[in-house]
Structure formats: structure tokens, C-alpha cells
């Protein structure tokens, strides 16, 4: 696999490490419920098709990335810096 890091360009997947689904949101703050946190920590969908997932460019710029990948074909539809995605998410909240 090759992943197009927004900072480093297309790089071999050996430079990256994988985390998983980018959809779960961490329940923030002292008001968060244990049940919500349980969901966030443990429960994951396993879709056949497009999924947005977190990768870390460990042997590169150390950026966390949101990679949109099709689990059936490994086709990558897009890669964005996770921080940008997270900032946009916060702005839209």
C-alpha cells in the first residue's frame, strides 16, 4: 500500500501505523458517562465499503491522518491531516 501523506507525499505503508475507525468521538469532560466511554473505547463498526480511519505517519512527519479507504478494495479516496479534520469538527460543533 502507499498512502499520500499531505505533508510527505505518497509513501510506503511501512512508514505508517494503523489505529482504526476515525468515527468514534471521545466523550469529553467530567460529565461524560461511562457507557459513552465504553462505546468509544470498545465498539467499532466493520463496514464493507468506505471507512474513515486513523493512521500515524510514524517514520515520517508524525502526523495523524484520516484516510478514507474502501475495505473491499483498499482503494484510498482521500487523506487529510487528522488535526485539520478535528479542527473542522470542532468549528462545526
Amino acid at each position: 500500500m502507499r498512502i499520500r501523506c499531505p505533508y510527505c507525499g505518497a509513501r510506503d505503508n511501512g512508514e505508517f501505523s494503523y489505529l482504526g475507525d476515525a468515527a468514534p468521538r471521545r466523550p469529553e469532560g467530567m460529565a461524560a458517562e461511562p457507557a459513552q466511554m465504553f462505546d468509544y473505547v470498545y465498539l467499532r463498526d466493520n463496514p464493507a465499503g468506505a471507512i474513515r480511519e486513523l493512521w500515524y505517519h510514524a517514520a515520517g512527519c508524525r502526523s495523524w491522518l484520516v484516510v478514507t479507504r474502501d475495505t473491499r478494495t483498499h482503494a484510498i479516496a482521500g487523506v487529510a491531516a487528522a488535526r485539520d479534520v478535528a479542527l473542522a469538527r470542532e468549528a462545526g460543533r
Partner: protein
Amino acid sequence: MSTTTLTRLEGAGPAAAPPSALRLQPFRTVSGGLIDRCSPLPFSFDGRRYMGVQGDTLASALLANGVRLVGRSFKYHRPRGLLAAGSEEPNALVELRGGARREPNTRATVAELYAGLEAASQNRWPSLALDALGVNGLVAPVLAAGFYYKTFMWPAALWERLYEPMIRRVAGLGRAAGADDPDAYEKVHAHCDVLVVGGGPAGLSAALAAGRAGARVILVDEDFVLGGRLNAERREIDGSPAAEWLSATLAELRSLPEVRLLARTTLFGVYDHGAYGAVEREGDHLAVPPEHAPRQRLWRIAARQAVLAAGALERPHVFGGNDRPGIMLAGAVRTYLNRFGVLPGHSVAVLTSGDDGWRTVDDVAAAGGRVAAVIDTRAEAPPELRRRAEALGARVIAGGHVAGTRGRLALASVDVAGAGGRTERIACDCLAMANGWNPLVHLDSHLSARPVWSEAIHAFVPGPGHGHGPDAGMRAAGAAAGRLTLAECLETGGRAGAEAASACGFAAVAPAVPTTDPEGVAHVPLWRAPRSRGKAFVDFQNDVAASDIELAHREGFRAVELLKRYTTLGMATDQGKTSNLSGLGIMAELTGRTIPGVGTTMFRPPYTPVAIGAFAGHHRGRDFRPTRQVASHAWCVENGAVFVEAGLWRRPAYVPRPGEGDWMVSVSREVETVRARVGLCDMTTLGKIDIQGPDAAAFLDRVCANAIGTLPVGRCGYAVLLREDGLMMDDGTVARLGESRFVITVSSAHAAKVMQHLEFCRQWLWPGLDVRMASVSEQWAQYALAGPRARDTLRGIVDPDFDLADAALPVLGCAAVTVGGGIPARLFRLSFSGELAYEIAVPAGYGDAAWRALMAAGAAHGICAYGAEALSVMRIEKGYPAGAEINGQTTAGDLGLGALLAADKDYVGRLMKDRPGLADPDRPVLAGFHPVDRGARLRAGAHFFGLCATPSLAADEGSMTSVAYSPTLGHWIGLGLIRRGSARHGERVRAYDPVRGGDVVVEICPPAFVDPNGEKLHA
């Protein structure tokens, strides 16, 4: 041929050698082919010595010498000869070379001959001609498909002791060398616009089109000569022999600066997003690779576009006795004739189901061979081809098939059943089989693209949807795309090359398509002979016969994947290259379905076997992975330190002194020196992360479970990091260097993981926080200076302006100082030993000098260097948890750190640490242990049981995690996790270690064994 003749020959010198050498090769033609008859190469096979010539493969050289029996089959030990001339060869598996270079299961057809090559046949005893296990053929009924699932079932006890070892010995192939590979391998990365797989007419045309447009082109071909079947057939391009087009094309390609031609290079795997794996056999054709040159080179190629022009593989016919040595693929016969100047037989019969096979007739005749017969399985033989064959004296039988073969160790005759049902025996020593060609869809299907059935050529061709994404296009051309004629190869190759280059943004045009001589492609495949005598093999390598497929059908294993696994059809080193389609064809007949209705097997990498050495490259032995050295490494080596591997690090474990025969003597002396005087330990391996920004304190408060934000500038604190699931991630120290600047140190082993976690928190969880971080582990050398005389020693190197008194730099204080006259340094009053101690960090470049200066400054105070072992002994004496306790299964509460956790802030792991299982009061928690018998030795890994309990999983109360001999106390001590341990101090339990025979009664105690109130720390 006798050995004596050969010996004399070798002594005769090169000038005299060629004619004599050729005389010893009875099947070598007098002229033609891509060989140099004036460059003889001596070699041996099964201990007998032969002569080949430059340009030969082992297979062609053996054939030239009349050696037809080259191996024994896998299961029945039947005599086998060459079937093919390329990498698809299922039979001729040999061991090459000897000693540590011995290489099993190598196909003789791809082993390039060199002077002195030693080869041996496999899977036979005592010899190839007289194989005792040939009797397996007599008991074939018990060895049919799936025999190991049903024949050796009872009594069950015999399976492990008798049946399996016996089957393994009988069914073995080659022997591994059993010694370290003496050769070197290397790995390279390459990038290109257009990768062309295959150096035949289609591939070369593709490379030409892309190369002329200026695209960066890499062309790979597994053969050592480029040209593909142009070298194997007598063809014309633009009215001249194809060799002229070939040499002109190669010359032009070599003149293009952006085109790289890699012969001897197999593209073995296609991976996502335009990533490809290839192996180049740089030194396989040499007896020993030149010094400093690799034997093989692994290429990782990133290509924007690829052209699959790998060609096609010919299919054998399936009939009784079709595995007798001398029965070959027709295309292979032509390869041996036209490329290697070898007649595979004096009298050749041709069995074909299409026009293509007839080409063999002319080639055999042109090389001086006799064509005994042409058997065309179609009802009508093409009249023009029939006339030409008959003019050459060949018997032509249309609508016939081969019903049986004869000959002991090689073919002597074939029994041909004619259309009228009459059978006639035709004497021949070679039978050329032509049954159509299978495009090489392997590489196309590596990314799960399903091949589709082509009615036009009766074979699977690459389907739509190979590769994906804008950068990953792969287009097939030529025979690989099912376009089998030379004209189509040239045309589709050029077009695919131009399209690929255009897709990369180059203005490419397909080259003008040259004209070629006409060729017929009409073909009606025959999946098996209607009636024949003897075993009719489908998969030669795995000894799968047509009858095995019938058996699988009868027993219901009809789905293609079940068929494969039940009969082993298409398994083994050739992965069914010559057999898969025949198997499908027979199953289709049996089930009344079409071949695409039955399905096709998919192919996975590698295309052909790849040596593990190539994947390892230079990553072996000491270079298996990088080695990180601590800042004091040179001093440690000079002083005879014993090192221990800790991840990538080589850390000094202890530094023995003369006369200390035992490691424990050295370690105890180091501990005693620290506790009584002063010691110096290299802590450079610690992960150090510099965290800066206005929100740095807020950030740390969210990632650490204890309070950090309130830490004053100039102070250090303990840092507890949890995972989000509530378990401990790591512990460390955090020093506040400024209002908005912190340095956090974490365990050596966890440094990379913690950095990744902190970046995750910063970038993904809380992107709004204004904070940045950098790993500075490599930038700072850091040493622990510990012991009552630590301050006095430190005074010797810290510049005089700085006050080191307890009031100025108390426990957990930190300060920026200078040492040695202005060199910046950081001082942290941290102790991992419980003694008065400092950690001093200097820029890494000063690391060696600072270490030597500290050792010199401490000399007057009795300093010694101490290593990881003494460090560990002292932390156990103090009851500090480390890696053995922070093991991914323990909570902060388990380790006695619960009181540190903040209640008034949110942090990673806050909610999950309170899950019922993690908050269970019955959990094993940290405690100290000492043996009741003070002389007893403790073992880490021992499990705790009540004194009266019988050891069992149910009675297990926990385990010992760390032990040490404490020179301070004079006996062994341990840390461990035991149920409700903090409430059981004084109680006795068994530390039970059945693996090493330990069973010791221990007393549970508080984890801090030495100076529990920390008085020495504050000195």
C-alpha cells in the same frame, strides 16, 4: 559417456574444447540458437560430469547431453523429465550447489548454467533411475486424493508416531542447506512512471512507446535474455528474422536514459496503490557472487502505471502415461530447438488441439530431427499444414488422441487412437503437446481482480477492474491479455505503453505496428483424452491425476476451492501453472457446467518462490535491526562493560572489575558502592519529550492521571499515564522548565508508543490546544548520579555559579546549569535508587566527555559506574514498579498509585479505570515478598498459592514479577502482584515455580524494602 574422457577433455584447453564438447552433447544441433558453442561449461548432475555451453539453462544442457530423467514425482515417485522450458516447470526440481549454498527445489529450466554448476535430483533413493519408493505407484489406490484424511486414520495413536513422520519422509522434496547462507542480499526501492512486466514483443513495444515519450520506464523479465518467445520461435517481423527487430528495439531502449531494463528479475507480487515486488537474481548464475556483490536483490517498485505483458503458458494434454520423460509442451520443444540448439528427441511426435502446435513440425525438421507423427485432436487437420507435414514424412492423424505411452524411464512409443477407433503404436522419443495457451493472469489477480473467460481462446483473460485508483492502473497487453499472435502482441503492447505513459501526463503515441508472418490460431481444446490407459496426470508436481478429480467429484468436493484443497491440485511450488485449467476443464465435464461456471482459482503472491534471504536483505545477524548506543558506549566498551539488549538499545548491564568471576558479585558491588558512596548510570535510553506552548500545562493535565498543571517552574513531578481503557500505559517524570515548557521522560521501552499517544491526543483529541512537542531522546545524553557523595561529585563538573545545596535544589527540583565552563546542562533531582541522586542531561555531543568528567570528579569519592542490573536491584529494593509491573494488565491502583490520581479533572483513562473489573478489591496488587528461609532464591514468574492450597488455576493468587538479590539486606527480595496484597502484609504464601522446580514459602511485605521513609533521598 565416461568420466575419463571428460577429464581428458578439460585438460585439452579452451581452443580444442568446442568440437569435443559438442561431440559429448549428442542432442545439440550444429548451429542456431542463442548459445555460444565455443564457450563450453562443465557441470555435474547427480555426480556425473557433463558439458554444456554458454547460454544454456541446466535443463537445456541436460537435454543436450541426452539426460531425460531429471526427477521423481512427489507422491508416486514416478520417473519424470522436463515438461517445460520456463518457470512453470513442475517436474525438474533439483538441488543446486552444495554445502551452505545448497538450494532445494530449484527449477532446472530457470537455472542458468555456469562452469562448475553442481546439481542433484531430489526425492529419490537410492538413485534417480532406481527409486525404491517407485513402489508407491503400485499402491496408488491408497494414495488417491485426500488419502491422508482417510487412509491413516486408525489407530489414532499411530498418526503422530508413525504415519505423519513416514508420509513426510516419503513425500519430501529437496533438503535445505542447514547452514547459514554465506551470500549477501540487498533491497532497493525504485520509482517509475510505467512498469512493464515482461520483455517479449508486447512488453518491449510497451516500453518503447512509453520510453520514447520520456516516461521513466522499468521493464522486468524473469529470463536472462530479453525477447520472450521471439527467442523461442522462428518468426519474421517486417520481412526479416524477428531477431533483427529485437536487437534494434533493445538498442533503442538502452539508448533512452529513463528506461531501465532488468533481466533475471521476476515480478512476484502486485500490491495496493501501484506497489510491486520483484527479485533480481544478480549472482545466481555465478558459482559464487563477487566480493561485496549481492546474490539477489529485492526491488520494491512504486509505479504510476503498469503494463502486464507477461505472456502465456501452454497447457499440457491429459491422457494416460502423459508424464513419461520425453513428453513435453510443444512450445518448450521449440524453445529448446530454436533458442538452445537442442533436439529434445530424435523422433518427435506432435499432439495438438490447434494450429499452433503444427509450428513444431517445421522447427523439428529444420533442426534435423524426424517428425514421426502429428496427432490433431480436431476432426479435421488444416489441409495446408497436413500437406507440409506429410511432405516431411510425418504420419498425420486427425480426430485422434493418445491412449497410452510406453517406455521404462523415457518415452519409447505412443499408442494413438484414431478417429475410427483403431489404435496404432508410433515409435518416438519425444511427444510435443499443444493444447492452447493460458494468459498469465496471475499478477493481475493479486489485487483480487477476477479473470474472465474468453471463448475466443478458451482461456481466462484479465478481467476489468485490475488495480484501482488513479495511480494504480494496470493494463494487460499481448498474450497476457489473450492476444496471442505476434502481430497482436506488437500492436497491443505499443498501445498499452502509450496509454500508460499518457495516463502519467506524457504525450505518447503507439509506435507503428510492424508486419509479421502469418500464423494460425484456430484451436479446440481437449481437456482430457476420451479413453486412455494408465494414470493421466493433471498436476504433475503434486501427482494429481484425472481420476483424483473424478474421486473429488464423486465425493462432492466440486466447488473449485474444495477441489483444490481436497486433491492438492494447483498447490506446491508451481501453484498449478500448468494444471489449473485442465482441472477446471475436467470438473466442468463431470458436472456438465461450463469452465467459467466451475470458477477459477485466484492467485496470490509470490508468482514464483522467493528466497527468504531476499526478503531479509542485509537485515540479519547483527544488522537484523538498528543498534542504538548509549552516550557512554565508548567508555563502557573500554572498561569491559557487559551489555544487554533493551529494544534497539545496547545498555551496559554491569561493569565487572578484574577478579569478579560472577555477574552477581559485580552487580552487588555496584549497588553497595551507590548506597555507600556514589555511582553513575547511563539513562540516555529514557524517552525524552519536549512539550511547549501556552496550553502545555493544560495538555499534560489531560494526558496524565495525576495533577501536573500545578507543578511550579523549576520542579519535577511523577507522571502517571493511563490508556483510555483505564490500564497503566507508562510512568515517568515531568519537569517544568518554564511557564509553558515541560520535559517529560518516559520508559525506554515505551518511548515511541508514548510519543505516538501524545501526538494522537494533541492532533486528534484536542486540536484546539496551543501546544507542540518534539522527541529529544537523541539530543540529550542523560546520566543518573546517585549515592551519598553524589552532590560532591557533581560539584566537580558544574560551573561554580550554580548552587547545588539542598535548599537551592531540593528533591524534585530542576535547574538549567552549565558544566565544564559554559556547556549547557539540565539538572533534575530525581532518584530511582532512593539515594541522594541527580539526573544530569547534556547535549548528546558532550555525552562522552561529560561521562568521563563525572567519573574523574567522582574518583576521589569512590565512584563506580553501574548498569541496568544494579539500577533494577535498587528500584526493587525501593519497591518502584517498572516494566514487569506496568505490563499492560495493571491499573494505577494495582501498583499502589491510586492515591495520586486526580479527582477534579478529566484525563485519558479516567472513566474506564473504574470499570467493575478494574476496581475489584480482589485484584492482584503490588506487594513485596521475602523468603522465609533467608537463604532461598526467588524466581520471577513464580505463582502464589496459599500454604495449604493445591496449585491450580482456580487457586492462583498472582505472580512474582521482579526479583533481585539485595546486597543491602543480604537476601533475595521480590515484587509481585497478589490478591488483596496491600492488606496481607505478614502473611505467608507459596511462590510456586514448577517450570524451574521452585517452591519457596515467602512472606508478603510492603514493597519498599530499603529506607521506606525516604530519609536518604532528602540528604
